[in-house]
């Protein structure tokens, strides 16, 4: 069995009296595509934010390759090899598409104040390398032609793709997508499906939160179901589909 990239151990997150996530334990193995689903307000995003360091869980531990990352800052976690996208896209509006992706590689580059001001050879070389790499990623994500446009001037679907590109630029072990299909039409979702598969073939491990059942059922190998902050089910898409608890909590209500 391949090694575990990411593991949460009884993670609980309380805000005041509200318990957003309780006792959630999940694990993601190398090369997998894992989905977390659940109705609105089930605590999916909160769990995501706990893992990526935006929140510190009230209780429980989070491990990245056996390294305890509980309570670490987001930028430290990203540096270890964990990159995310956001539910409501968060790009840098005053930077171009290319610069957004180059920023993604921030934690893989070293140029400091002195290099930059003195314009050292090391800085020039690094800047050129990172630029080439960013352009490559833009080719893969089919954003190359828009590299000098401002990030937020792109149409919605492309902005989503740019967020993926930016996350990939950080050279992560695991990619975490927060509702990647939100706001996409049927065709775009289909493209996304293909794209995520492609990322898996490139060797990335993927954890995603999703509302779109079709996407999740199609591409995820394993699925966790959250409801009211607690994990109620876990298994392959087939198992989830036939689990009465899930149908009651989620599918039953929606359809």
């Amino acid at each position, binding site marked *: 069995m391949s090694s575990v990239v990411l593991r949460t151990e009884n993670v609980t997150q309380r805000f005041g009296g509200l318990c957003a996530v309780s006792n959630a334990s999940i694990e993601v193995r190398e090369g997998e595509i894992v989905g977390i689903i659940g109705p609105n307000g089930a605590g999916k995003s909160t769990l995501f934010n706990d893992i990526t360091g935006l929140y510190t869980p009230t209780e429980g531990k989070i491990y990245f390759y056996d390294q305890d990352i509980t309570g670490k800052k*987001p930028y430290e976690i990203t540096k270890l090899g964990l990159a995310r996208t956001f539910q409501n896209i968060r790009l840098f509006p005053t930077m171009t598409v290319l610069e957004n992706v180059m*920023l*993604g590689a921030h934690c893989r580059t070293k*140029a400091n104040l002195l290099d*930059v001001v003195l314009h050292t050879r090391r800085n020039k070389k690094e800047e050129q390398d990172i630029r080439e790499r960013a352009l490559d990623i833009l080719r893969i994500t089919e954003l190359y032609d828009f590299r000098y446009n401002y990030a937020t001037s792109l149409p919605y679907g492309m902005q989503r793709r740019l967020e993926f590109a930016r*996350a990939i630029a950080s050279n992560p072990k695991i990619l975490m997508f927060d509702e990647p299909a939100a706001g996409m039409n049927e065709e775009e979702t289909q493209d996304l499906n293909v794209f995520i598969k492609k990322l898996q073939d490139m060797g990335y491990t993927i954890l995603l939160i999703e509302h779109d059942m079709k996407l999740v059922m199609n591409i995820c190998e394993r699925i966790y179901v959250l409801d009211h902050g607690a994990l109620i089910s876990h298994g392959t898409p087939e198992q989830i589909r036939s689990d009465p608890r899930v149908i009651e909590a989620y599918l039953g209500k929606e359809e």
Partner: protein
Amino acid sequence: MARKILQGWAKWEKYINAFLLLVAVVFPILFTRPYLINVGVMCLIYVLLSLSLNILTGYMGITGLGWAGFFGIGAYTAAILATRFQVNFLLTFLAAAVVSAIFGLIIGLPTLKLSGRYIAIVTMAFCEIMRTLEVNLDGLTRGSRGIPNIPKIGFGEFNFSRTVQYYLILAIVVLTMIVITRLMNSRVGRGILSVKDDDIAASAMGVNPFRYKVMTFAIAAMFAGLAGAFYAHYIGFIDPTSFTFDQSTIIISMTIIGGLGNVMGSVLGAVTLTVLPEILRPLMDVRQIVYGVLMVITMLVRPMGVLGGFNLRHIRQQMGIGKEEKARELSSTEN
């Protein structure tokens, strides 16, 4: 129309900058009256101050209100060193920059962890603390009597002429502009912009927002301190009244009205707002009112300031005439 002008500016930027520099260089040769050179020097001091605040407010997005505080720290550091210990100006400049940057760290480290909304208030408070200290630490600063007879810039008995001092501050300003431009077109600059745009996303992409804020704050304070040191030596006398909240308002007016996040914006803002009251003498008495009105109008019409938010490099890239594009074409023809 506006777009055309912008593209033209982007395309000819190098030549326009060279021309402006030429104008600045021949200015004291063409106009030799001490009064005019003096106005020129004051313009350049304010350009330096405005540039320094632009690093913090324009690029980093943190509204720095008490900027005269750092100006004052630089001025007092230089004045005290020069009058008590007969330190040469090169060293007083260096010391002023360093001390000011250290104060930037002292203020920045505890407060920049908080959300940006407090910083304006904290910097304002800081400026006032500094002024109170300048008034009350009599033994060090001579209180409200001020420090007179600060040695002119020069070596030993030899003092630079007014014109040479003009060229000195011009050189400092040009160097500062080069440093800012290099900084902003780099990995570090991207980090700064990302934190300004969205510090949560920046953090998730591996940028430490706090570190960047503190670093930017210290760099900005350093340049303000340098401006203070030059000012102290040039005028030869300083007292706490030069570093009040009114002075801070003047500096931030220049930065914001000229244009946030654009070095030429600071030049435009500082030169216009220094020269305007000189030309329209009756304006002198009400110049603060004029600044206030201009500030409100700017916020209504162009919140980023007249030249604010324009990135000429981006415009060149979008026009397909960027430096990188040319390099690429060149390398593809070689292959």
